[in-house]
């Protein structure tokens, strides 16, 4: 792992003397910006220094030091390392930080998340409501002094388990028999979901200008949380005029389990199987991202053979994700199941490989810091070769023959704009959606991790940014992944599969790390802060699905409701990752 200084080319301190200082804590990088200059500094970072893609907004609670911090990670869309800037404020309510939504529109949902979970008020944010927790919820759960009803200790392992582990059931600790807490005097009968009032309030700005003197009602339609095409428990409150979408707010959090908080209770290793449960379609990629982040923090190298195994697994995962994406897109359009089931056949064969190597089809838990759990068992590499060299290329062609020229499909997909390049960048979109809009930004090339710089492949890119391109780019990416796989299985060396000794508790030096990978859905990143203890102080997941739906409103305005289903479909969201 190279440790090039992240901020070599930018001198923010000289640009804003007196307001910006370099972050000199050992293991930390970037700049600390005075809160009053934040918006100005961010504008300069975007316009003067060219960091136009704000990928992550992370709140951090430094409880012992009585301060709160917001960390911003910005990147250049042309590639290269990123820029980290932070703002620190005292931890006395109200904790206030200016919103960056005017500079980076992509900060919208992430700021709402930081407000919801940490209670950081972003002044100037037009719609600062809770996003993952419900509106009646009391407190901000990611704060270090907030305790869940099943609370035992701050950090695992819990002392009650050994040597005197008399079993107790967690549910017996709470009268609700669940990890639930309600505000005092909470009466569900009398509770008025203030959240919905706020939600519809935020949609009320869409008034119909009635040019012809005709009166037509504005209808609010709630799509979801159970609508079959919403890819899980996702809800969209949509304002309609006729069939045209006038306004839209995504409502999420139905699957929220505070992955970040669980992660901060866990040890570093214990987090690995939890990451499987984010984007449950691609646990290999999730493992990859987390391993990259922790390895950055530990500053260790990965065993050579393991690097290849990692790439093989991640690319196989991408292929099955994209195949199923195509099938599901057709489901969304009403072509129920035939394409999806064809895709599932290939997916099953790929999952067979995961199962043979990792022990589980979907919850792989296959990566370890410095390598992988075990070498590929006998026969597995042959299976991979059979798939990559023979079956998958043929099946990808078949998928194309099956769908790409189908006139009905083409008429549903062609010309329906998803988003243009400029807006996609503004809204921090990453992954295939961004590339379909004509921006060749792929972290495997732009900011390589692992051994991706050794492979010869093209970053798939399409120019129109319509639904058709979003469909075709997945096929392109499958072909590129196959190219990478071909090289990887040819070059894979023999050797150990982990550079470290197996340890159930790793030593992680103090500092911060931001590990990002190109997951099949976009940028998946983990932001970690270590204080040298066995558990991370801050563990934050920056999922592609969550950030990508920031632009959902922008994408859907003015389209027909039937197309909205497909527009949501091409964002390829998965709720395990979106709600965390």
């Amino acid at each position, binding site marked *: 792992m190279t440790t090039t200084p992240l901020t070599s080319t930018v001198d923010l301190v000289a640009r804003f003397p007196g307001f910006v200082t370099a972050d000199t804590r050992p293991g930390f990088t970037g700049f600390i910006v005075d809160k009053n200059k934040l918006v100005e500094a961010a504008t300069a970072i975007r316009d003067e220094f060219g960091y136009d893609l704000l990928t992550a907004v992370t709140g951090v609670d430094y409880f012992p030091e009585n301060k709160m911090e917001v960390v911003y990670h910005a990147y250049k869309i042309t590639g290269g390392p990123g820029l980290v800037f932070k703002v620190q404020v005292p931890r006395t309510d109200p904790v206030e930080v200016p919103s960056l939504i005017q500079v980076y529109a992509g900060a919208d949902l992430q700021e709402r998340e930081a407000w919801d979970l940490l209670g950081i008020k972003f002044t100037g944010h037009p719609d600062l409501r809770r996003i993952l927790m419900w509106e009646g919820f009391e407190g901000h759960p990611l704060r270090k002094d907030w305790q869940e009803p099943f609370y035992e200790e701050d950090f695992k392992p819990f002392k009650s388990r050994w040597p005197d*582990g008399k079993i107790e059931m967690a549910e017996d600790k709470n009268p609700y028999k669940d990890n639930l807490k309600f505000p005092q005097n909470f009466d569900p009968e009398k509770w008025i979901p203030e959240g919905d009032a706020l939600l519809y309030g935020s949609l009320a700005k869409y008034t119909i200008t009635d040019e012809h003197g005709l009166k037509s009602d504005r209808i609010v339609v709630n799509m979801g949380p159970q609508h079959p095409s919403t890819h899980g428990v996702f809800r969209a409150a949509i304002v309609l005029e006729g069939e045209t979408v006038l306004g839209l707010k995504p409502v999420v959090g139905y699957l929220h389990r505070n992955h970040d908080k669980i992660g901060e209770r866990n040890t570093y290793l214990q987090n690995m199987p939890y990451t499987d449960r984010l984007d449950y379609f691609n646990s290999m990629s999730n493992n990859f991202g987390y391993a990259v982040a922790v390895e950055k923090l530990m500053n260790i190298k990965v065993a050579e053979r393991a690097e290849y195994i990692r790439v093989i697994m991640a690319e196989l995962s991408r292929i099955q994700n994209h195949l199923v994406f195509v099938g599901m897109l057709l489901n969304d359009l009403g072509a129920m199941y035939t394409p999806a089931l*064809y895709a599932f056949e290939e997916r099953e064969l790929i999952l067979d490989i995961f199962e043979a190597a990792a022990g589980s089809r979907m919850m792989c838990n296959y990566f370890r810091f410095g390598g992988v759990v075990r070498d590929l068992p006998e026969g597995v590499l042959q299976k991979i070769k059979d798939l990559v060299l023979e079956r998958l290329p043929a099946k990808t062609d078949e998928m194309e023959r099956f769908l790409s020229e*189908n006139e009905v499909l083409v008429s549903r997909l062609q010309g329906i704009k998803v988003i243009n390049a400029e807006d996609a960048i503004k809204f921090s979109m990453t992954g295939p959606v961004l590339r379909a809009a004509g921006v060749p930004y792929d972290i495997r090339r732009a900011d390589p991790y692992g051994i991706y710089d050794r492979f010869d492949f093209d970053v798939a890119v399409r120019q129109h940014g319509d639904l058709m391109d979003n469909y075709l780019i997945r096929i392109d990416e499958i072909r590129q992944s196959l190219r990478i796989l071909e090289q990887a299985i040819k070059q894979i060396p023999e050797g150990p599969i982990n550079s470290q000794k197996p340890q159930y508790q790793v030593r992680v030096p103090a500092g911060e790390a931001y590990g990002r990978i190109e997951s099949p859905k976009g940028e998946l990143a983990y932001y970690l802060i270590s204080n040298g203890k066995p558990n991370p102080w801050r563990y934050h997941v920056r999922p592609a699905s969550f950030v990508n739906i920031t632009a959902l409103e922008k994408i859907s305005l003015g389209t027909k409701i039937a197309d909205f289903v497909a527009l949501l479909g091409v964002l390829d969201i998965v709720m395990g990752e979106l709600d965390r």
Partner: protein
Amino acid sequence: MYGKGILKGLSVTWGRFWATYTEDLAWLVRGKKRYFNQDGVKARAGKDTRGIFTVQYPEEHLTIPEEFRYIPFLVYDETAEEKKEVRCTSCGICAKVCPPQCIWIVRTNDPVTGRPVPVPAEFYIDADICMNCGLCAEYCPFDAIKMDHDFAIASYERNVYNMEKLLKPASYYANIRPLNATREDEARKAKEAAKAAKAEAAS
């Protein structure tokens, strides 16, 4: 021509539809059973699978790979007098590494000296909380806890497994994971031999 793409696509479905029957025929000609037969299942899950892909569970089962992992169990060695020799020393590593903290161990203390004895007095796994991650088996230094293959455990009750339920013989382990068991046995024997040689050299 409008509709050409649709026809092209339909040719794929058409081909797939007939593939099931041509395959059936091919198996018939070869005089082999395609359904309710392990060879047939294997072929359907192989790289050349065509036509019907599904497996008629529970009559047919996919082959479970050796590394497949499900709720862990405790291994005991059978001694000559048919006594169960539990491998676990109640060192507590598995309880510490377990991510959802679903392992509970009570260590045995010698009633006279009060010092710990290397065998668990009680051992529980809350199977409803276990996430089947396999970390316990991975980090146990004594090969005492291993992941199972038996996934059909649906029940109406809360599944808390005690020692009695968790203990399974080493022969069972060797049966579900032959390669791993052999490798570990060899490593253990080599270690013991090295220890014995060292003791001999010292004496």
